[in-house]
């Protein structure tokens, strides 16, 4: 059946239980809500953008461990990076999650890909074995991309 024990172990579980950057962001320039109708996950991501880069990010809401862990990872990974990296990293996250899982799942080794995934994303590798959970892992990233697309403070809902 599934390898849930892979999913709920180690770094992913730890981050999902104790996420960093969880809470409001007083000086946010961009905010958007991500909502997954499949499981009822609802996260709001906040970003403070300065000179085309992320000065600071945070998120809040109720969601499963996978969505929370990924959101937390995002707020750390994208801080001090260009806003363009949001979409680019989301694309690489998606392709990483869509890679075949027929090979033995390893949480450390990078599998072959034209553009390797940032090693920081490797913590999400176990999600590959759970196709219905991939959406949880991309929820916060999609909300952030939405927030960037609409200038200023905004709140948009992702469609499934």
């Amino acid at each position: 059946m599934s390898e849930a024990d892979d999913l709920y172990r180690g770094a992913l579980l730890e981050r999902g239980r104790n996420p960093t950057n969880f809470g409001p962001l007083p000086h946010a320039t961009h905010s958007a809500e991500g909502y997954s109708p499949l499981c009822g996950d609802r996260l709001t991501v906040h970003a403070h953008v300065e000179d085309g880069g992320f000065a600071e990010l945070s998120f809040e809401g109720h969601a499963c461990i996978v969505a929370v862990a990924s959101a937390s990872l995002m707020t750390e990974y994208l801080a001090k990076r260009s806003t363009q990296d949001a979409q680019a990293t989301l694309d690489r996250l998606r392709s990483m999650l869509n890679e075949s899982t027929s090979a033995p799942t390893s949480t450390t080794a990078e599998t072959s890909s034209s553009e390797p995934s940032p090693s920081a994303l490797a913590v999400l590798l176990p999600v590959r074995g759970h196709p219905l959970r991939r959406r949880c892992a991309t929820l916060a990233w999609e909300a952030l991309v939405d927030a960037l697309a609409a200038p200023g403070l905004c709140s948009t809902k992702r469609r499934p």
Partner: protein
Amino acid sequence: MGSETESQLKSVQGSDVGSAPLGASAAVAADTSTFGEVARRDFPALSGDHVDRALVYLDTAATAQKPQVVLDAITDYYTNANANVSRGIHTLAERSTDAFETARTRVADFVGCAAADEIVFVRGTTEAANLVAQSWGRTNVRAGDRIVVTAMEHHSNWLPWQRLCESTGAELVVIATDDAGNLDIDHLTEALETPTKLLAVTHASNVLGTINPIATICELAHAANARVFVDGAQSAPHLPIDVRALGCDFFAFSGHKLYGPMGIGALYVRREILDGMDPWQLGGGMVLEAGTSSNVEGAVPATASWMNGPARFEAGTPNVAGAVGLAAAMNYLEKQDTAARQSHEQDLLRYATAALEEVPGLRILGQAETKVALVTFTIDGVHPHDLATVLDSKGVAIRSGHHCAQPLHDRFGISASARVSFGLYNTRTDVDCLSHALTHALSVLAP
């Protein structure tokens, strides 16, 4: 007349349901699992050499597994009778039409209606609600009218009425539920004091499990001149259905939750209402005469007239194999001892409720006195989606999410929940497996 059904339900559900809290008697109630063990053998997805590990399937409210006799009936239809219905006159067409209409009679008998021509085949409950909203609704609902729904409706018995109200300027009124998950009958009575065109209500809630007193509700609604649409998706698989005793005007259910195939369901419409309804989809099989009066090149056919009876609402080639499979499922259920089946399902409900109440931090959503065999719950600090994934790793299949009932989840202030639901093939052992898997899940997930 209506109260007969209700008293029948009460007696079927056992005398201990009325006064004692659910689950209190589980320790002393008779274990009916033999019924489940025997039934399970009829379901190839749950038993047999090809099943490499035991599946604890607790998601029957989403869709039931299918007995071999249903699979065989579908194969037999395609092998020996496949042809389009009510069109050709060759032997296979006769055989196919006969199979389709025999299935319609079977369904009519199953829901206790007067005649087969009160049964319209549809894809499922969702399509039935949309059919009524678009056909009956467009003709009968005007700006300023009211449609009443309840807070415990599935989206499929909510959104069609919401859109009908938006498009006609009618008002949508929502009847509240109490904290235990009972429909607020006082609120309903009060709401019906204002003229109302239609009441759309579920027979049994897919989240709370609550069995609503439909006969009483229909009496109230009819006294106020309102029609009643009953969503029977969760009741038809568990309770004897008698649409005449219930007194409803429309009753819809899905075959796939009733151990039949997906993509087939039925809508009962009281005949005098059916005769006044316009078609909602147009095409082959539902038309009497199409545009013969002005069939000049470039001209739009001026006239068309429609078939009478259910055919008017069955445009296009119907799902004949589905109807045959549904009839086979009903035959299968009829061969079971209905009282034994129901007491078995109620035993599972009590046993599971008692087991879940032992879990720290677990809260059950829906504590009505009469419930179908399902339990929805949340666990403090544990997201239902994570829970479902960990339970799945132990071979236990449950549902997580909002179960297509977001308004109800809003009412209880939660975004998602977990649900276990039972079919005739489940056993107490399945519940024990759930308990063990829950213990494991909490050791992994609990904060």
